[in-house]
């Protein structure tokens, strides 16, 4: 897990309320948590977007990628010892911070994400889950980022507040868009459903309630 937004204790406390002890998982090596403070110093000084240098070594995110790869490979050894689940998942909390580490060069970020997607452990590709903010890419130089991110993803989950404002009972609505044929096929095998699903949700301390609009 690449925790760029909050310290480990934040995630651990929330997960503990949901019955999952991240600390023991971290101790056993099943979870590798990479903190934000390790990476922010990597930011390139004085360079802004549009620079021509795009080689791997110039990318400040290369160091981040190497750490992620090292963590994933280390994870593989742990898993082979315990014979547990072998599927590896890279989670990135707040991918918009990656832009800051890259000094505003969005190509670097896309490169990094591509490398993460291509990362394979034991001939099985890792899955990547990332959180980002749509509104930080609404200006011309970064305009294509939203589309680019959507293009590379299999499933897009959009979380937004209700258009009528904040409420205590309904915290917002979530739209799930399944993009790829493979995912579609898997879903259709179980139960035919539409490609776009829309729910409203309410977040509680230990769980999240999802319901169809108007069915609270």
């Amino acid at each position, binding site marked *: 897990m690449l925790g*760029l937004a909050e310290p480990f204790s934040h995630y651990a406390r929330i997960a503990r309320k949901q019955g999952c002890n991240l600390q023991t998982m971290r101790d056993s090596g099943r979870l590798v948590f990479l903190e934000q403070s390790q990476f922010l110093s990597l930011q390139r000084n004085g360079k802004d977007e549009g620079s021509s240098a795009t080689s791997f070594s110039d990318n400040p995110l290369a160091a981040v990628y190497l750490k992620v790869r090292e963590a994933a490979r280390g994870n593989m050894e742990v898993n082979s010892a315990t014979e547990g689940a072998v599927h590896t998942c890279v989670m990135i909390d707040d991918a918009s911070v990656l832009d800051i580490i890259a000094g505003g060069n969005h190509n670097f970020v896309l490169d990094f994400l591509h490398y993460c997607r291509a990362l394979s452990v034991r001939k099985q590709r890792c899955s990547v889950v990332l959180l980002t903010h749509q509104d930080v890419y609404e200006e011309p130089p970064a305009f294509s980022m939203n589309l680019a991110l959507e293009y590379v993803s299999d499933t897009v989950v959009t979380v937004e507040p209700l258009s009528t404002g904040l409420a205590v009972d309904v915290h917002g609505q979530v739209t799930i868009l399944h993009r790829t044929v493979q995912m579609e096929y898997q879903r259709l095998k179980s139960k035919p459903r539409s490609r776009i699903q829309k729910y409203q949700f309410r977040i509680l301390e230990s769980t999240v309630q999802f319901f169809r609009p108007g069915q609270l």
Partner: protein
Amino acid sequence: MGGGIPVGGIVMVMEDLEAPHHMMLLRYFMAQGLAHAQPLLFASPLFSPRCFLGTLPGLATGNESKDPRNSTETNQKGDKLRIAWQYRRFLAEQQELADRRQKQQELTELRSRSALEQKRPSLQVQHYSSRFDLRRPMERALINTETVECICLQGSDMLSQLQEKCATFCNQLSRFDSGPQQVGRIALQSLCSPQCMLLLSEWEMMAFLHQLKSTLRMARAVAFISFPPALLRPSFTARWQHLADILLSVEAVEDDDKTLDAMLTDYRDIIGFLRVHKLASINTQVPAVPKAGSYAMKVLKKKKLILEQLQQAPIDAAGDQSGGAAGLLCAKPANAPSRLDF
């Protein structure tokens, strides 16, 4: 309001270019810190930031400033009765809550480490609800202490200096120390004003803010940052807003706004509005929903700053179109014995 500023949190205030109300909030934030003799780091694009400390409101004298801990019950009663609650009380409650939370954290840490038989230093009784008088300047003795640092946000190596100062400031207040418990306050005024952005890219500023956030989370300190969103590109404003734990904005009122005048009962006294956009939700996934989205800022007798929930004047039913329908629905049946029977 959501339980106050949590230790390690960032409060951001979006400034209004036409009104200096953010300075008022900043003054209260700093004055409260100084009144508790808490370490303070103040950075501003002004040429001499230390001069600004001279404009901080002084403590009000008299029997007004009571210790809330000794009279918690009466205070709670008073809170219920009082419609207009004051900013300092709000700040004080926040601080108290934050401190309590922090003490609990300390305690659990101590337990888990089983560092035992270490007597906790006797807690200083602090007057959390200090009252301030805007007309009176802060006492010199409180300002000229070693714990108060000022930085001018101008010059070529401003950011590195600021970064360094913040890092040392936070290191002194590390959560893992078992020394006297004190919460430090960092106040950064108009961080992205043109004076300090001359030699900096916006990305560098963002990196600094993220760095600051991660160091704050590990320290017993809170930061209060004000910035003019109109001077930033919209995408960067969004980034700044995502970074904040508590996001507020201030807004000036126009002098002769007839619609507002008709809507609000005490429009003449209001100097501005404070809007609450986001409240802190650290260590929890449940978002905090504020009770009220906007507050009116008033200055009473040039002395006190008061925050008040907006009160709308009742709409005159006679002039209202829906009055007829309501009258029809609430009308008495034809055979009712008295006017009040339905």
